[in-house]
């Protein structure tokens, strides 16, 4: 790790090299490792060390961005020059806002030493635990265990200077028999929180219970979506609608509907980069402190997230959701939360007479972005529910379903939430029981 002093010194060195009216420097130093396994053996095992220096300049209502990963003076100077020369070749863009001014950045702990110090042998040990659990039951395990340490520094010529070290560990596995599979995933800031035994047991149990899957005709069914499936829907909904840029351009389902009911009253979704039950980060890629934003509250569309450019266009403040510049998405939530309900998963299950239990979705894509209609497949643990119990495994199904429509027919939400990877960042969601969920196709396994 470079540490705050060296990162700040480097950022100030780059700022000093720029001759632009406004300059922003983003430093992203990363040490990461990933151990991947398949067929119950480690087949890929990698480590990476990198530091990216990204320079954004604003000069006469024109912007340019250049990045390098070489810290030599000449390379840094060239990056600053490239950014400025690209800006000065352009005509003025009167819609371009200034870089943000400094704001107080709250403290939040994002770092766990155990993750940063995790060794290849520790990762192999966790993988061995899962592979043994699988092989003891005649099953095959695959998956990945990753650990990463990231140091982010953002500085600009208005005096913004922000530094945050963070860590993340993630373990996922798919355990397979010859006709079934089960999935489990755990993620945390702290490697010590990752319980390989628990992850392995969850996946093994699913793979065993879903053996001899039966086909089911497509149609409308009551579903219980595990947290993995709900996270996929919430992340995709966020991508489709929670950016102020999408609202401004009319491409978001929120456009023209702020203040209106868009889902059932039980649905509340917000973003909070300071909540330590997520994967927090106190500021965004413009060095602006993250603020909690209620996106959907009790079914009402409340707000979208902003960076400095979308905020400038709307005459408001950035909410601290900028991504690295430039990007075509605009701002995005990176720390999503969905409000839990009051029922355990078992209680939800006991109230379903006939329905489908979905562990997770695969290859989800938008069919109609404004209607939030998505399509995708079920995967790694799909079951028929009858009389309040899981009866047998099902062959996988294709869904084509509006997210907002589904969130309007939620029967119950789980009392437990699970932290999962988002697009980008993280998402913490409960399981949901939803009526009238539309399956439009079926596959052969």
């Amino acid at each position, binding site marked *: 790790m470079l540490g705050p002093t060296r990162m700040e010194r480097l950022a100030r060195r780059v700022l000093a090299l720029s001759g632009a009216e406004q300059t922003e420097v983003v430093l992203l130093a990363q040490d990461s490792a990933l151990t991947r396994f398949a067929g119950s053996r480690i*087949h890929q095992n990698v480590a990476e060390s990198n530091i990216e220096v990204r320079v954004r300049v604003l000069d006469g209502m024109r912007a340019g961005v250049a990045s390098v990963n070489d810290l030599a003076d000449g390379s840094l100077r060239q990056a600053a020059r490239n950014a400025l020369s690209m800006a000065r070749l352009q005509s003025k863009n009167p819609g371009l806002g200034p870089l943000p001014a400094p704001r107080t950045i709250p403290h939040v702990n994002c770092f766990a030493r155990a993750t940063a110090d995790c060794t290849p042998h520790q990762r192999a040990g966790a993988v061995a635990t899962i592979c043994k659990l699988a092989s003891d039951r005649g099953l095959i395990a695959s998956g990945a265990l990753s650990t990463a340490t990231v140091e982010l520094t953002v500085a600009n010529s208005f005096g913004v200077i922000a530094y945050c070290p963070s860590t993340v560990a993630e373990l996922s596995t798919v355990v397979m028999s010859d006709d079934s599979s089960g999935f489990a995933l755990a993620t945390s800031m702290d490697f010590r929180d990752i319980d390989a035994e628990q992850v392995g047991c969850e996946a093994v149990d699913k793979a065993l219970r879903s053996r001899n899957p039966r086909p089911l005709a497509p149609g409308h069914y009551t579903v219980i979506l595990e947290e993995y499936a709900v996270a996929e829907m919430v992340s995709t909904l966020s991508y489709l609608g929670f950016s102020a840029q999408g609202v401004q351009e009319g491409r978001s389902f929120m456009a023209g509907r702020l203040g209106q009911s868009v889902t059932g009253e039980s649905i509340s979704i917000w973003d909070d980069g300071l909540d330590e039950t997520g994967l927090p980060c106190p500021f965004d890629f413009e060095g602006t402190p993250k603020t909690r934003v209620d996106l959907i509250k009790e079914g009402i569309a409340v707000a979208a997230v902003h960076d400095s450019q979308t905020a400038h266009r709307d005459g408001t403040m950035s909410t601290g959701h900028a991504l690295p510049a430039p990007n075509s998405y605009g701002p995005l939530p990176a720390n999503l939360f969905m409000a839990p309900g009051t029922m355990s998963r078992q209680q939800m299950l006991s109230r379903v007479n006939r329905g489908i239990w979905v562990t997770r979705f695969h290859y989800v894509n938008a*069919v109609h972005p404004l209607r939030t209609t998505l399509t995708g497949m079920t995967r790694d643990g799909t079951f028929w529910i009858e009389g309040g119990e899981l009866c047998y495994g099902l062959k996988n199904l294709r869904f084509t379903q509006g997210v907002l429509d589904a969130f309007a027919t939620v029967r119950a939400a789980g009392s437990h939430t699970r932290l999962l990877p988002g697009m980008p960042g993280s998402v913490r969601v409960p399981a949901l029981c939803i009526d009238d969920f539309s399956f439009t196709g079926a596959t052969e396994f």
Partner: protein
Amino acid sequence: MRDITMRALNAAQLRGASYADVRLVRQETQSIVVKNGHIEAVSQNESAGLGVRVIVEGAWGFASSSKVSAPEAARLAGKAVEIARASGLVRSKKVSLGPAVVNVATYRTPIEIDPFTVPLEAKIALLLAADEAMRRIAGIAVAEGSMEFARESKLFASSEGSYVEQELVESGAGIEVTALGDGELQTRSYPNSFGRQQEKGGYECVLRQNLTENGERIAHETLALLGAPQCPSVRTTLILDSSQLALQVHESCGHPVELDRVLGDEASFAGTSFLTLDKLGSYRYGSPQVTIVADATVPGGLGTFGFDDEGVIAQRSTIIQNGILSGYLMSRETASQLGLPSNGAMRADGWNRIPIIRMTNINLSPGEWHFDDLISDTDDGIYMAVNKSWSIDDRRLNFQFGTQLAYEIKNGKLGRLLKNANYSGITPEFWGSCDAVCGPDDWRMWGLPNCGKGQPGQVAHVGHGAAPARFRNVQVGIH
């Protein structure tokens, strides 16, 4: 650079590696985005580093760093060996790469105009002209245009004696229009989806696209789509244009013939494949009209190169021969499990990723039909063009694709424009229903710059050649 590669290879072998390779890679990209008459983004990025891959006692290890120096190369070799020893704790049989591969060579993408020497002003002016052409049509919500140029300089050296230097150059551009109305959002893009049409080549690839000349047309089409009737839900005859067929080939043939997927190496993430080893040489994947080749040598193909990232020479091999599964995309390790040599499909997304099996250019061979004759020969059906959405299951059987454009076909003629068109099917049934493929005059190479795979994630740039083709009894209009 030879001192750095030697240092890495020597250090790896001294520490116990039975095989080692090192890749030094420098990537430069320039991207320009214009939106609604303004420059949205201009950026220039450089990333350089080296990665060392080793086999120790039959297990893999890899370490990479952005510091390019001989001491760092030696340090990375030691780290890769340590990682490989950890891999050995959870191992089955020892990794075998088959016979040694020794190539000493250089390769450069042939280009006419180096895109990095073309003034930025000229590129911006071209995009703004296309943007103006799109916005000339009243009612457009968003007009966008983009260009992207990439140069990858890479050096591969192995403990077997390979030493391969390559410089690969890509150029791409595209425009897109969005229109909104009555709860509808419709998009048209040109020449393709995914932001741009990317090729291996110089700025001449961009000049050939005639972006400005197509701006008004796609703007008109977008507005027409807003008021068009919905694509009906019906089983019918489907004709796909070459760009949508390119994605169909990508998802339902390119991915399932990746041998790492077939062998289960991607099971936890991207998934496996229905094209299992027992099917090789006998399985009817499609109709006799369907022949698909993997060809890393096609001029201009986005998946064209001189050598893959294991130092194996670029080659052409048949994947589907007249409907029968006849080959896979292979690495040295996976090919050796079949007793075959690699067909050169290992590529890494930069210095900090290991090579994995990736598509090269996976091409549907041209048939004999002319497009106009194909339409004339179809009494009732739907013609769909240019991808809008895609999804397929984790063994690559059940798929659903949406397209930007669709037209009725009635009595051998294209009829009404339809909106929100999509179709669904099961891969071998779908390709089995193919009864006509258009010929060389309608055949075109398309570039897909966004193929994701692997953990940590890697993005590959791959190519697909295709001509329009006809499929019978396909389910369309899934709403």
